[in-house]
């Protein structure tokens, strides 16, 4: 079942990748590919999408870390302080990956690219 689903997903992905160039705006001759309005739209889209992906995956990873820590603390309450320390360290390190993405988003949004 999962092999067939994987095959269907892969073929859908290929179809989307082949069809994507059809959405590109038609370019006139002599038109630069750096139309400022297009650049601004694509920068805004890129920043928002990057932050969304980073936050979603960071949320998943932190959820797994917290659930493992809670389970460990429930099994062994006397090791609670050490588990809490490792938990905080792990959470902040995972969070910092989302912060790096936020930094790139801020750099994208607040610099004047070309114009």
């Amino acid at each position, binding site marked *: 079942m999962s092999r067939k689903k994987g095959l269907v997903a892969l073929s859908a992905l290929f179809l989307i990748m082949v069809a994507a160039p059809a959405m590109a705006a038609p370019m006139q001759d002599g038109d630069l590919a750096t139309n400022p309005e297009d650049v601004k739209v694509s920068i805004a889209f890129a920043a928002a999408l990057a932050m969304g992906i980073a936050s979603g995956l960071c949320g998943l990873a932190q959820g797994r870390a917290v659930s493992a820590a809670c389970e460990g603390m429930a099994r062994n309450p006397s090791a609670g302080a050490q588990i809490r320390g490792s938990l*905080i360290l792990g959470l902040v390190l995972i969070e910092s990956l989302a912060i790096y993405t936020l930094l790139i988003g801020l750099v994208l949004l607040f610099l004047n690219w070309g114009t």
Partner: protein
Amino acid sequence: MEHELSTITILLNSLVASFTGNDPQLPDQGVVAWFIVVLSTVVFVPMSRRFSIDEPGWVQQMLEIGVESINAMLDGFIGPGARKYFPVLGGFAFFILASNLITNVPGFQPPTADLNTTVALGVMSFLFYNYLGIRAQGIGYAKQFIGDPWWMFPLMIPIEVLSHLSRPLSLSIRLFGNIFAEHTLASVFFILLPFGLPLVFAPLGVFVAFMQTFVFVMLSMVYIAGALEHGH
């Protein structure tokens, strides 16, 4: 997005401008950082002379809690005899905590919300742990770049160098990103809804301040432990 100035920077700018005639445009994060250092020296050095061992007041007890927690972390990560590194790491901890928390005082911008301060802190931490490693092991400190079978060095050297260089980068960007994002979030919510909503974000800001201090100091200790244990 305009960078807002603290009141102390505005005061100093106008003070210098009234003497010399042109506005010096002092950097905001430098002025507030110096303010924190000068204020803590002026407050804590006379206070430390009046500390007593037998009858501590409440301020001394609170400060001893902080000192003991950092010492406990030092013992846990680096091992016995690590208490001599307390001045540097305690200084990091206090400066970063004060810089993060001073945003809650009206009229101050946190100096760690600027990449200059955090990169300086990250580079200082990097230089400190390398200095400790070189002082402890001499030229043998470079052996960790070569790896166990000596013929693996073309692969190991770039990887080790990159991982060492990424440490101050990640330390500084983590601190900057967290404090800047929280500070910007608070100011955006203040614009949207001046009553009530910023109050909800104040405890989050304090929590983030403590967490970021804790993580910076803990990672510095882990790097020091890693620099000292090769060959011990």
